[in-house]
């Protein structure tokens, strides 16, 4: 070995990545979990279109964004498609990722696989990308089902901007699913037992779904107390609340799709009357402006996914092959 190469690893960390990717992908697609998810997809697509169509038939006014309404309209007792997705996707992502690494330990396959000429990088990347690709596949199937069914039921073809918004919505949803896949992956490296790992990941999900809203409120009250004689304090508290609740990926996702799917939304935070001067209320924003509005949330979700993956990566690189 030349002295200049000393301290360097030989070869590429990507060797074997695609072998792992395709094996994991095949595993996911043929697994029982996938069967369960497929049934859920079918039900949710039919439910969403039914709810959307019911609501829309009752609307008589002209609406230029029919397809987007199908995504967001809710009909009691059915939730809207978007509400359903934000509930269902974290669980699907956790189901695909919670036993990624500890499953290899428990089946005693890890040392055998790592004795092959690949780096650990390839194994982790392959598993992550396979999970993400499977989620993308689920999402795409769901999306096409909803679009197709709504075409049949409503008979109104979407225009270019609507399709653009729908695709952006798909991207944001994938990033959101990636965050939960990352959380599941970290849990699968941290915990040796698959059941513990699944439970831990679900606990994180419950924490953000149920408790973070309350905690954010308490934190906001503590950081920016409301003073009845100072109207500005109310605004400060609202802003603090927003900042705290944006720690949760659920909030980021909700805000991102609100901006993308609802062209009438002009701001995701508190708006003062003075800021609305000269605005035509209710008039839709062009796609570019909506994207600009959702940009921080979108990049936040993607960054969070990468951060979680990096955490899983560091933990996994340091883990002993033997317990």
């Amino acid at each position, binding site marked *: *070995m030349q002295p200049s*190469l*000393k*301290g*360097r*690893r*030989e*070869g590429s960390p990507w*060797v*074997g990545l695609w*072998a*792992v990717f*395709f*094996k994991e992908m095949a*595993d996911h697609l043929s697994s029982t979990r996938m069967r369960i998810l497929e049934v859920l997809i079918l039900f949710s697509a039919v439910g969403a279109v039914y709810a959307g169509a019911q609501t829309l038939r009752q609307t008589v006014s002209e609406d230029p964004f029919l397809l987007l309404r199908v995504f967001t309209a809710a009909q009691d007792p059915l939730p809207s498609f978007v509400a359903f997705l934000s509930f269902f996707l974290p669980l699907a992502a956790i189901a695909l990722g919670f036993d990624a690494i500890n499953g290899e330990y428990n*089946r*005693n*396959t890890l*040392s*055998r*696989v*790592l*004795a*092959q*000429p*690949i*780096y650990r990088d390839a194994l982790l990347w392959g598993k992550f990308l396979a999970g993400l690709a499977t989620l993308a596949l689920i999402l795409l199937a769901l999306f096409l089902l909803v679009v197709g069914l709504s075409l049949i039921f409503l008979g109104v073809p979407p225009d270019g901007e609507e399709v653009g918004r729908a695709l952006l919505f798909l991207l944001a949803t994938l990033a959101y699913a990636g965050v939960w896949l990352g959380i599941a992956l970290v849990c699968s490296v941290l915990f040796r037992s698959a059941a513990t790992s699944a439970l831990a990941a679900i606990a994180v999900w419950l924490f953000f779904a149920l408790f973070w809203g309350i905690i954010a409120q308490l934190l906001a009250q503590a950081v920016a107390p409301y003073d009845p004689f100072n109207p500005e304090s109310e605004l400060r508290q609202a802003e603090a609340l927003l900042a705290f609740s944006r720690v949760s990926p659920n909030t980021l996702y909700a805000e991102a799709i609100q901006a993308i799917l609802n062209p009438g939304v002009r701001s995701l935070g508190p708006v003062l009357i003075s800021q609305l001067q000269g605005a035509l209320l209710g008039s839709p924003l062009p796609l570019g402006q909506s994207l600009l509005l959702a940009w921080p949330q979108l990049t936040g979700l993607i960054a969070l996914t990468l951060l979680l993956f990096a955490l899983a990566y560091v933990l996994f690189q340091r883990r*002993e*092959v*033997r317990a």
Partner: protein
Amino acid sequence: MVIEAQGLTKRYGKVVAVEGLNLAIEAGEVYGLLGPNGSGKTTTILMLLGLTEPSAGTVRVLGFDPAREPLSLKRQVGYLPDSVGFYGEMTAWENLAYIARLNGLPKAEAERRMGRVLERMGLAEVADRPVSAFSRGMRQRLGLAEVLLKEPKVVILDEPTLGLDPEAAQEFLGMIRGLKAEGITVLLSSHLLHQVQAICDRVGLFHKGRLVLEGRVEELAQRVLGGAYRIRLEASPLEGLAERLGALPGVARVQLEGTGLRLEAAQDIRSQVARAVLEAGASLTSLVLEQPSLDEVYARYFQEVRHAA
């Protein structure tokens, strides 16, 4: 030298798993890394493969540094872990195909090799069955098939006979002997000393992370047991025979054992023993040269160490 280690040390926190290990294994050798559970055998193997990082010391396998050139190393070194696991829902063929892809073998070449190794391990008929239905012995053979898939120069086997019934274990050891005939260097670890001693050219005995004894089985027996040749005889009457035989040149000790005697001698002196027995007027019913057992070497060595302490 195919495998070379110098001052190899591994610490987990305060616990020392392997300490100051020096190892030199030549091409074509079958080397046994022997010792009780938890004496550092598996840790040593993982360090040789670069699967765990040594705390100190250097390793070279086929001239490669496991920490810096793991890919070239692992392309030519096969490893069978102690509790080998497979993806249960996949068939034997699919499990091998995955490993072949990880090794970057082209499809046609991979299929040719897979057919050959499955045939050789006697698994060709069950290749399409899911591995979850395989017995322990079949899994072990599938593990060896996978190791051979990359046509390795060095094969490292961790506890290859663990959990196998005696017949399957002997069969598996026969397969390992077959590797030596092909010129493959074999490093195997085991705590079943008597089981593997017959196929090892050299052995290293581990105790609490240290390699305490190393050499050929006969050498070690000679060194530790004194007399390397142990002769067991049955004769009657036994009276006075022990003294007579003890006086023969080269006899280290004579012990009464059941209905016969056990001699330890520096050479194979069976003919002298036979003559002495007959000259004493006794009738000789059996005379056997016993193979020294490594278990005994190990036990005796630690007895002596304890006595010395």
